[in-house]
């Protein structure tokens, strides 16, 4: 197992390198000359302004050198400057917004967990009764409502009809305005946790040691909590690592409709402003978080469950 862990850790820099290089190509080469983007209407080919700007920003150098310089900056925490927002450092723009998105997504994740895990555990104990397929179908029905529909729908209900909350805005997680985005983000996620928890509980319930515990005459509650739940929750914990990494990616649709100053909304704006340095930084940060979360999930899985063999 340790060989596997070490090999995964050695892979890490290579994956990070490839991810960052592809991201760099995607933003610096694919869309065309960034100088045209920055100058906009004032751009004229071979004008002094264009040549000076290109030289100043280093875009006249070979792509490999540009990449090396950029990554050198990233390692020192410098993600370049935003071409749209008055050349402000990208770092100061994106991290506060990621924090907002993370808070919001955390509340959503909590809702998915609180409803999903107990429900999955419960219906696994009632396999074959009507609870089981009904719960699965209901959670799937809720999962299939795209946020493009659910957020306006919830706004119509809570803001226009019931007047419980204002229709947009953000003021931290203890503000009433979190109601709509939290429901919109949390409820679709229930289905995934129900399925996962149901499958892993069924798996554990079929094991010998549960039968042994029953044969010993332990109470149902003790068996459920001490033996079944503790084993069945393992896959949920590993999936959580990914969910937590996904927190900073932001909820594009929900944030855009609600006008929440998160990273999802900011990414959309940056796409339309063609602010590629911002997008590149967002992509890099989320991708790096994912790679590391994946590693932690894999390693923790191999530690929690030593039966799993990696070659």
């Amino acid at each position, binding site marked *: 197992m340790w060989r596997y862990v070490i090999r995964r850790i050695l892979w890490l820099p290579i994956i990070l390198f490839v991810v960052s290089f592809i991201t760099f190509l995607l933003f610096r080469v694919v869309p*065309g000359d960034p100088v045209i983007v920055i100058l906009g209407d004032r751009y004229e080919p071979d004008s002094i302004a264009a040549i000076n700007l290109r030289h100043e920003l280093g875009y006249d150098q070979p792509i490999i050198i540009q990449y090396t310089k950029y990554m050198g900056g990233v390692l020192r925490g410098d993600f370049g400057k935003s071409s749209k927002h008055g050349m402000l450092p990208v770092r100061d723009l994106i991290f506060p917004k990621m924090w907002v998105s993370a808070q919001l997504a955390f509340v959503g994740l909590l809702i998915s967990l609180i409803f999903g895990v107990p429900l999955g555990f419960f219906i696994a104990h009632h396999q074959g009764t009507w609870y089981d397929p009904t719960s699965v179908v209901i959670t799937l029905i809720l999962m*299939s*409502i*795209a946020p493009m529909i659910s957020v306006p729908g919830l706004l*119509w209900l809570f803001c226009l009809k019931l007047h419980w909350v204002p229709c947009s805005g953000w003021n931290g997680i203890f503000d009433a305005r979190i109601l709509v985005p939290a429901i919109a983000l949390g409820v679709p996620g229930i289905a995934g946790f129900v399925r996962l928890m149901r499958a892993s509980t069924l798996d554990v319930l079929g094991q010998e040691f549960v039968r042994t515990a029953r044969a010993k005459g332990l109470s149902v509650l003790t068996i459920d909590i001490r033996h079944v739940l503790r084993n069945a929750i393992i896959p949920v914990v590993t999936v959580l690592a990914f969910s937590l990494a996904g927190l900073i990616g932001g909820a*594009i*649709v929900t944030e855009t409709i609600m006008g929440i100053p998160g990273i999802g909304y900011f990414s959309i704006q940056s796409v339309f402003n063609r602010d590629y340095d911002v997008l590149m930084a967002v992509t890099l940060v989320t991708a790096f978080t994912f790679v590391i979360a994946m590693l932690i999930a894999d390693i923790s899985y191999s530690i929690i469950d030593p039966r799993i063999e990696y070659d």
Partner: protein
Amino acid sequence: MGTNKIDNLGGQSHLSRSLRRLFRKKIAVICLVLISIIYCLGIFAPIVSPYDYSEQDYTAIRQAPSFEMNEGINGFFTKSHFAGTDRAGRDVFTRVLWGIQNTLILTFIGMITGGLVIGVVFGLMSGYFGGKIDSLIMRVGEIFTVIPSFLLVLIITATLKPRIREWVIWVEDNSFVEGLISSGFIDYFVVSVALVSFGWYGTARLVRSQILYLKESQYIEAARAIGVSHWGIIFKHLLPNALSPIIVTVTMGMGSMVGVEIFLSWVGVGIQPPRPSLGLMLWEGGNISVLRNQPWMLLAPGIVTWIMMLSWNLLGDAMNDVFNPRTR
């Protein structure tokens, strides 16, 4: 899987048995019917729809759903606005039908090229040959997974489009091909590329794990011993046995592919107006002042999108039950 010899004695394959079991499930049949109805409405949009999708009627702006009762059965179908009209007096029902058509075309292109062809071929190669090819394909796939999928499709669409547009203009200038830009070809192409990039890895990984498992079976060893070629083994022996999980993933993936396509046009990087798209209609209908005064603008595209995604998800779930009974 269906490697059990006793099961096969009756002359029926695992596939046909599973399909029969699928048709016995009420939910699966309902979903299949709903999907067929919606998709038929989309395919036959030019015939079914009572108006033209860009026909503006300034006498009927922002009208709530209305039914024309005075002009007989023909007038009922051609003069009513079943789902109301939008701010330019265009019939929402008509636009929803055309929007379904766009979603249908794009998701099928995305699923067939990305989910099926690329995903299956890469998965087969990765699982069968192993070694360097396997590492390469899986690492590339990992890179696709570490970038959040919504951001990925958004970025691909946004950065690729100006480039493709330049190329197409160049092609039009230098050849006799014309009308590519005005036909909206670029939108379709770019969105398809984004959907493909989103869809291939899931299938590839699944096919790979299936092949890794099947590769060890004795009949493959036997096939190899009598000198069947690599491709013969892959396409004659491995692929048919891996078929049912592929069908399940493709069905389950269709729901989210529909979601991504609608997301792209919702954001404004998908199919461009004046072509109607469900995403754009949801965007217009989701605006708070529209929501307050003309909620029907969200209602029709919202219900159609929801039923479409729901049917695919439920159908995928039902298929998972019948094809992989062990997970039940």
